[in-house]
């Protein structure tokens, strides 16, 4: 900055004569323009920072809920069995336990009403609702029959206006479903159904629990459905059952008696078996209620003291058993609990009207707010999870819910998470899958780990080579050779990484796989041959040494190293035959039991090390070269050897510069995309093994970003990954720069 020129204050007075006004205006305009232009750079960095933050922020926002409408219904109606709404939240429905369905518009208008038509003299004795997304309910009748209904919404566009028509469909069709063969009333029951199968577990008149499965087969001639029946008594059923649940796939049945839950395997309706008795009793706590989470793999148990506990099946020594996974505490006296259609969210409402929204996997409490919904009877989500219907105080309350990213939380991103179906809590990155009821697993840990692993192996390769190279180039090399060598190595920095990646993936990886013993031998032979040549050189007669040109003395190792490298590869097959039964890869996999990927950390380390070498080399060389000469000269004059001067004086002085070079290199290795993308298998595993691959943050963004939907949690988490990279490199670069500035000041004072 020594050449900086400041405008003299009297500049304006120099501007005399004609056109001075225009000239001074131009002068000022230029100054303003240039200043604005300069500040733009700073603005650009800020823009990137804040834009990334702006995209990322919504995933950490909680949910928001606002009441849209409250519609009063007839206070004499039977208690609610199920409440909900259509996809557009234009209609709310309420199913009473007598089977009567009412549809309301948010403005209070009764849109439609449905009363089940029952045969004369038959009454409804019990009712049961399905899991939320099926919107189905069933009525147990006094004559042992079952009526099945589904709430449906038809959408039509007459005159380009969307019209939603509510409908309650009788799923029995024309047939009567006699479930209790004895014709006695069905007192309590639960059911699961698919297109042609219906399983019902019910309490007969004798108080015993029975299982009945009806299978419908279409008669090809008459096209009528004929029902065949199978069933059995449930063994060891508790006498006092308060609640019962069946999974929609008709595989499991749960009966709750007090604090105990009896889980039956009912796949075979003839022989239901007791799988497990969950003892959910907790100290001084009473189990209140239980329900199935979306996907029907998890049980949510709610206790009278405000705890909700999630259970799901985990593979263990004794097979797949339910066990306690996580709990949510302090939710108050829960009166009603509701789960979403497809996500693992649930909502609770306490007796005094506190609504709490939670998400199981991310262990987030998204919202907890007091509303005028004391003593709720039922609550239900809308199909798109953007609304909630609560039945409280003889009113249906419609709440608009904004809850876009419940599955992301600090703990879900960075801690081990116990996902459904996994044997233990794990770090998993699995953003997409083929199946529908898939839960995205967005842990950044495996990616951050992969990034660190790749950077580490690259640094292991690059740091020794580049620092040693920098030392030699800056301190020992003749100026003439240096002026060639330095730009040659630096030109590597300009080499597109896509080419390094391509070579690493398609040339180096097969080469290493093929010649693994040769690579190992080379690791030993290369340094050994250098030492040997050095020793040989020191023993060489003086007149021989003088005859060789001194300037290029440094480069005499080049042919030696080439030869050694070639020899290592040449003897590789023989070594392979001698020690590894002719196939090293097989040997590693079978004898050592190590997984061997062709595109592994070794390949990445070498290829990315290559990309990093020029960065580190260039900065470190500058730092060593600019150590003031009088320091080393002083040391040499005091009798120190070259090497002593180097290690005790020069390197010590230049160490901050070398440190900043390594930081810069690390920054580059962390953010490198193409090389890792092409030279690894891109599997998000967490293994330190040198023979296995990894998936880094940067490569992950490159792979998944083009396919992620704008505004989805996945999209925002990828932005978060970019933000993390940004922060990583920001820290590395800033530290390196600050250290370098300090060093420069120190040199100038020397």
């Amino acid at each position, binding site marked *: *900055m*020594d*050449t*900086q*020129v*400041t*405008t003299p204050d009297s*500049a304006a007075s120099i*501007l005399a004569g004609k056109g001075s006004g225009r000239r001074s205006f*131009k002068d000022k305009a*230029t100054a303003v323009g*240039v200043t604005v*232009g*300069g*500040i733009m*750079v*700073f603005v650009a*960095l*800020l823009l*990137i920072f804040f834009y*990334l933050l702006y995209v990322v922020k919504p995933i950490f926002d909680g949910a928001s809920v606002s009441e849209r409408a409250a519609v009063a219904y007839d206070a004499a109606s039977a208690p609610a069995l199920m409440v909900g709404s259509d996809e557009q939240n234009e209609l709310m429905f309420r199913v009473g336990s007598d089977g009567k369905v009412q549809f309301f518009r948010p403005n209070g208008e009764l849109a439609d009403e449905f009363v089940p038509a029952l045969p004369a003299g038959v009454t409804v004795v019990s009712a049961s609702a399905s899991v939320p997304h099926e919107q189905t309910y069933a009525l147990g009748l006094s004559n042992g029959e079952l009526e099945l209904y589904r709430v449906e919404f038809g959408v039509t566009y007459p005159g380009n206006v969307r019209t939603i028509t509510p409908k309650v469909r009788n799923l029995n069709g024309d047939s009567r479903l006699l479930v209790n063969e004895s014709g006695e009333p069905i007192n309590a029951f639960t059911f699961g159904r698919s297109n042609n199968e219906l399983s019902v577990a019910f309490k007969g008149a004798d108080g015993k629990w029975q299982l009945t499965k009806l299978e419908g087969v279409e008669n090809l001639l008459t096209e009528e459905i004929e029902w065949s029946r199978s069933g059995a008594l449930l063994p060891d059923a508790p006498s006092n059952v308060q609640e019962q649940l069946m999974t929609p796939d008709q595989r499991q049945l749960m009966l709750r008696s007090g604090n105990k839950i009896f889980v039956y395997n009912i796949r075979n309706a003839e022989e239901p078996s007791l799988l497990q008795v969950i003892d959910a009793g907790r100290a001084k706590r009473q189990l209140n209620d239980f329900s199935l989470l979306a996907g029907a793999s998890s049980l949510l148990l709610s206790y009278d003291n405000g705890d909700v506990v999630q259970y799901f099946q985990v593979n263990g020594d004794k097979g797949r058993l339910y066990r306690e996974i996580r709990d949510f505490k302090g939710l108050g006296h829960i009166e009603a609990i509701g789960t979403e259609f497809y996500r693992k969210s649930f909502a609770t409402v306490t007796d005094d009207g506190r609504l709490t929204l939670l998400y199981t996997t991310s262990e987030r409490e998204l919202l907890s707010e007091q509303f005028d919904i004391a003593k709720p009877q039922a609550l239900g989500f809308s199909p798109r999870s953007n609304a909630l219907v609560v039945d409280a105080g003889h009113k249906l309350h419609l709440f608009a819910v904004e809850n876009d990213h419940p599955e992301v939380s600090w703990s879900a991103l960075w801690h081990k998470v116990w996902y459904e179906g996994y044997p233990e809590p794990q770090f998993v990155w699995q953003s997409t899958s083929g199946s529908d009821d898939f839960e995205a697993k967005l842990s950044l840990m495996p990616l951050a780990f992969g990034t660190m692993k790749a950077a580490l192996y690259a640094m292991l390769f690059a740091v020794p080579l*580049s620092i*040693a190279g920098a030392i030699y*180039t800056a301190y*020992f090399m003749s100026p003439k050779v240096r002026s060639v060598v330095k*730009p*040659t*190595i630096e030109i*590597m920095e*300009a*080499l597109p990484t896509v*080419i390094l990646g*391509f070579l690493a993936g*398609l040339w180096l990886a097969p080469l290493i796989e093929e010649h693994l013993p040769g690579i190992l031998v080379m690791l030993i032979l290369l*340094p050994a041959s250098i*030492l040997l*040549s*050095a*020793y040989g050189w020191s023993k060489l007669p003086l007149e021989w040494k003088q005859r060789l040109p001194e300037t290029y003395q440094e480069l005499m*190792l*080049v042919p030696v*190293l080439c030869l050694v490298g070639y020899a290592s590869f040449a003897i590789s*097959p023989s070594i392979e*035959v001698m020690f590894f039964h*002719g*196939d090293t890869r097989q040997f590693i996999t079978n004898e050592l039991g190590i997984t061997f990927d062709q595109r592994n950390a070794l390949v990445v380390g070498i290829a990315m090390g*290559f990309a990093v070498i020029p960065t580190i080399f260039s900065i470190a060389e500058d730092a060593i070269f600019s150590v003031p000469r009088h320091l080393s000269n002083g040391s040499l004059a005091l009798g120190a050897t070259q090497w002593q001067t180097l290690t005790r004086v020069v390197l010590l002085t230049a160490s901050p510069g070398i440190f900043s070079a390594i930081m*810069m290199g690390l*920054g580059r290795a962390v*953010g490198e*995309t*193409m090389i890792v993308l092409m030279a690894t298998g891109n599997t998000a595993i967490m293994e330190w093994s040198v023979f296995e691959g990894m998936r880094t943050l*940067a490569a992950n963004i*490159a792979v998944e970003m*083009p396919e992620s939907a704008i505004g989805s949690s996945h999209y925002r988490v990828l*932005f978060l990954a970019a933000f993390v*990279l940004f922060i990583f490199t*920001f820290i590395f*670069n800033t530290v390196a*720069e600050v250290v370098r500035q300090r060093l420069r000041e120190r040199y100038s004072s020397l």
Partner: protein
Amino acid sequence: MGKWFKSGSPWIWMTGGAVSLSLIAVLGLLLLIAWRGLSFFWPADIYEWKLRDAKGVESTLIGEIYDREQVPSERLITAGVEFAEPPGEFVTRYLVKTGNREFVGLDFRWVLETDIVSRSTPEGIALIERSKNGNFYGYPVAVIENGKRLELSDVQHSLEEHIERAVDIGDKATTLQKRDIGAINHELERLRLKERRAELDGELTDSKKHEFEAARAKLQADYLVLEKELFSLRDDAGRDSVIVRDMRGEEVQLKLDSVLDVTYANRLDFIGKIGHWFGGVANFISADPREANTEGGVFPAIFGTVFMVLLMAIIVTPFGVIAAIYLHEYAKKGPLTKMIRIAVINLAGVPSIVYGVFGLGFFVYMLGGSIDQLFYPEALPSPTFGSPGVIWSALTLAILTLPVVIVSTEEGLSRIPSAVRQGSLALGATKAETLWRIVIPMASPAIMTGLILAVARAAGEVAPLMLVGVVKLAPTLPVDMNFPFVHLDRKFMHLGFHIYDVGFQSPNVEAARPLVYATSFLLVSVIVALNLTAISVRNHLREKYRSLEH
């Protein structure tokens, strides 16, 4: 020995070894790319092998040697390979490119040396390059002209003539399809958008509707005429065919409209091979890719890279230069300047993929989305600027290369002796005048250097482009003869992405590999040349000002 170790001399040698290793690596890498890339165009000998396997079954194989390797015979035996007589410790294995994909399934085959009975290079074998199904190897036997078999002694000459004719007609057909029919399609699409626009503005009256209908009918009629012409050209191109005897000994008829070239590689002398090599290079640079990019040339990728980089240079230069001038000439020492400097350093260090993410979110979705809503409502919901395109790529890379221009320009500014500025100011010039007339002209080589380095960086960058505009195959170039001639919203092809795509995403990596090496060599040589130019401009500049200072 101990004393020798104590002297530190071995460690010095070790550091020297590190430099040597780095040098070997750099030069070896460049040589590897150059060798593999350039040898791709060299016409290789075509061999005919007589093979006999362990069971005594004999067969003939025609093809080029693609690769060879030494395999421990133990490994082969464990893999279940049988040998007629026990082999030595190692067996040589050849990878042979056999072509003729539609008849033999795979166009590559491993051949063990132990199976080979004899090998020859018959002069009559020709390599026939085709636009579909890859190369064909075999003996051309006869040419069929318009259904009539021509029995000639000089098949080669006649075949070459007929191919030339077919290729000429084929080119005409392609031009007709791409230029004339393409223009009509473009016009039709513009008409549709105009009509939709009028409808959105509520100005679509019946008379206007009729106008649109009439225009559309006229275009359709033109189209039908051109289509007829195209079909007749195609028929004409497919008039002739050639009969080739392949390695199975069967005679195969190949229509000439899918044949691009024929080479009797074994008949070529050295000069002929050199000629063929140059022809191959020229074709590689100027032709369009074929067969999912695994064959043909890379012209659209070159064009896309150059166009995007130029666009970026236009954007980045003013900003970079102004920022450098601010930092060096105008900024006062203070926290703001310090922050700007840290910003510059960090912009240089932020991973390129982060720029890609930023570009996708901010430029494409936010900026592009808004532009679409404001100016192109008629095309919605299909995006115009709201999807990745060349302009967004150029903008993204402009931010990415901004620090390069700033640092380089600032270095140039700092080399201008302050006496020059002070002299100008002393003579009564304002600061702005000094800047415009003295400082910037003197710094222009440095600005040039920065620009060249920025261009070199941008040309090699792939990761961000994958998000903001690059595609594996762009049907049209960003510049063509249709209004408005320059289409900044179009997606484009890029050499670097081409390498990634062909090398890692293509179905036949083995066949495409030489092409990837050739593309790599092209890219590397451009970038290294740009860098060397920049370095020499910079060195020249340093020398110049060194003399000025004294």
